[in-house]
């Protein structure tokens, strides 16, 4: 017993937090990869996540595509959306001051969200029920098959993206561009192409997160991107923005912190805790948990 709560209770809340955190982690990856490479906080990322959820929704309900295929389709469409956004909104501003790109990102976010409200209707849509929920009880800790699917898919995608970034040639190029874009270009790396790939990958991951949220929580709305996006952004900063494992760590911390504060303190602090964690981390370790302090190049 700890503060009146037994161990199975704490373990159960940990499982709940992991499920939620895995979604934050998927979205946070997109933020962090894009930031790492173009130093842009892509505020439209949360809305791409929302679009991903709707792509999946329409693929399943209108085109009657099975879930297992709907997810890659949603990811593909979202990747395309990300590429279009990069090409039309951000590339023309590559040489402009960073603040201009940032404001553009907020504009793109609002544009997508309001388009979503117009096209998809603002009412919450029930996601189609893909599988019958089966529940296992292991020593007082409950797992459901939906939780396992969600965690499994999130983990698989995170492993794949890590392999891509750290083990492939394109991944190496990506890291090179992130490290020093001009030097990378001098080495013959097509940095515009690498940036497009980054947007495509980040958007695809966000879409996967969107489909998983729909699958697990069963409710999607055109405005869902705002809160998830914000939390994931905080997760990315907490983990150390620009660092791939940092985003995953930040996402999981965020999920667990939220669940624990609701379980053991008060549900009204749920949204506050994300930002409290952010403030504490920034005070103690400004570069994020996994970040290394880099001196500004002069």
């Amino acid at each position: 017993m700890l503060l009146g709560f037994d161990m199975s209770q704490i373990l159960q809340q940990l499982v709940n937090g992991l499920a939620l955190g895995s979604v934050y982690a998927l979205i946070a990856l997109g933020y962090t990869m894009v930031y790492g490479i173009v130093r842009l906080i892509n505020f439209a990322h949360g809305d791409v996540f929302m679009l991903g959820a709707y792509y999946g929704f329409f693929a399943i309900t209108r085109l009657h595509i099975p879930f297992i295929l709907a997810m890659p389709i949603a990811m593909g469409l979202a990747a395309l959306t990300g590429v279009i956004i990069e090409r039309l909104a951000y590339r023309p501003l590559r040489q402009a001051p960073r603040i201009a790109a940032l404001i553009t990102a907020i504009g793109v976010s609002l544009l997508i969200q309001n388009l979503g409200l117009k096209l998809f209707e603002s009412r919450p849509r029930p996601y189609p029920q893909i599988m019958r929920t089966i529940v296992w009880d292991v020593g007082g800790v409950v797992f459901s098959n939906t939780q396992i699917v969600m965690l499994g898919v999130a983990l698989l995608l995170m492993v794949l993206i890590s392999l891509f970034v750290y083990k492939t040639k394109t991944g190496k190029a990506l890291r090179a561009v992130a490290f020093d874009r001009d030097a990378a270009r001098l080495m013959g790396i097509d940095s515009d192409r690498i940036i497009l790939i980054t947007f495509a990958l980040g958007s695809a991951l966000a879409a996967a997160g969107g489909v998983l949220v729909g699958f697990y929580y069963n409710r999607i709305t055109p405005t869902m991107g705002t809160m998830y996006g914000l939390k994931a952004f905080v997760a990315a900063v907490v983990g150390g923005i620009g660092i791939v494992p940092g985003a995953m760590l930040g996402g999981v911390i965020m999920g667990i912190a939220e669940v624990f504060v609701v379980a053991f303190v008060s549900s009204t602090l749920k949204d506050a805790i994300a930002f409290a964690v952010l403030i504490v981390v920034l005070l103690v370790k400004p570069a994020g948990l996994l970040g290394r302090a880099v001196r500004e190049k002069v």
Partner: protein
Amino acid sequence: MLRRSIILALALLVLVGAASYGAEEIKIGLITSTTGDTATFGISVRNAALLWEKQVNARGGILGRQVKIYVEDDKGMPSDAANAALKLINQTKVPVIIGAVTSNCTLAAAPIAQANKVPILTPTSTNVTVTQIGKYVFRSCFLDPLQGQVMARFAVSTLKASTAAMLYDVSSDYSMGLAESFKKQFEALGGKVVASETYSRGESDFSAQLTKIKRVDPDVLWLPDYYNTVGLITRQARQLGIKKATFIGVDGWDSSDLVPLAGDSIEGGYFSNHYSAESTRPMAVAFIKAYTDAYKATPDALAALAYDGCLVVEDAIRRAGKVDSEAITSALATTKNVEAVSGVLTLDADRNPIKDAVVLQVKGGKFVYVTSVSP
């Protein structure tokens, strides 16, 4: 030739103008949520009101004048509801307003009507404080405490429950009020509320709260909120292995989206409501037929209530004998024995109606009538 046609046109214009002046229509404002979180409610309300408009005009209107309803969408947001009330009063210049749908919106719109001395009648807002705003604010549906009392009584006597857990929205007056009245009545009847957990509007993860509820393993789980949240909660509750508890709730459950959102998890749950589509009252049968013919859908309780609200306003205008805000207000205050779809309506001194509630059960994805309960 040209001059003659101009004169003819002028004469026509005068005629048309005179005709429309003689039968100047009665404007009625309607604040409802046709988009947003509670859109299915708002659309039902709008549909029922427009059905009434058509029917009353076919009957020759009120006081020999045709009726026109001006619909304003509040998107389920209190700020928009307040703006809608302002627009209807200052711009459209309606003598009476019907709305809003949810209590939160009515609580924002009603003070504006009160300040401008325009009567407002909400057909669907069940929060107690709504009619306490002032003498221009009326309602034609029962109040929240009644639903809490009815379901507490039902849980104890019919479901034989001795323990209950509650999970409710602390950012909603509606949900808080219902949690309070349920707890009071349930404990007065000898039951015990063993867990009381909360969340805030718009949340989608309830695993932390439900894990705590699972630990105390209650007989019933009281979920006083709207369908779009309840559907998520019941699904997650079953996913977390809450097997024993029967889900019980309120009129906010009554939506065709509840079952798609909740899936099998909601099966067997009970909720209190204003009316049942299986009602055999002649008035209800006629309404259900007309509504189904017009919209190809069974009217939900919101539709029935909105229709009843329109009937109360119609009755008041007829008795007032003129279309004037003050006269309509006095007439509304003395509403007595109006035959309506959900029952016979009489307003008490606090401008609230006295009427029964029904309990429905989710069975095979449908809402089935179980029993009627008097307050």
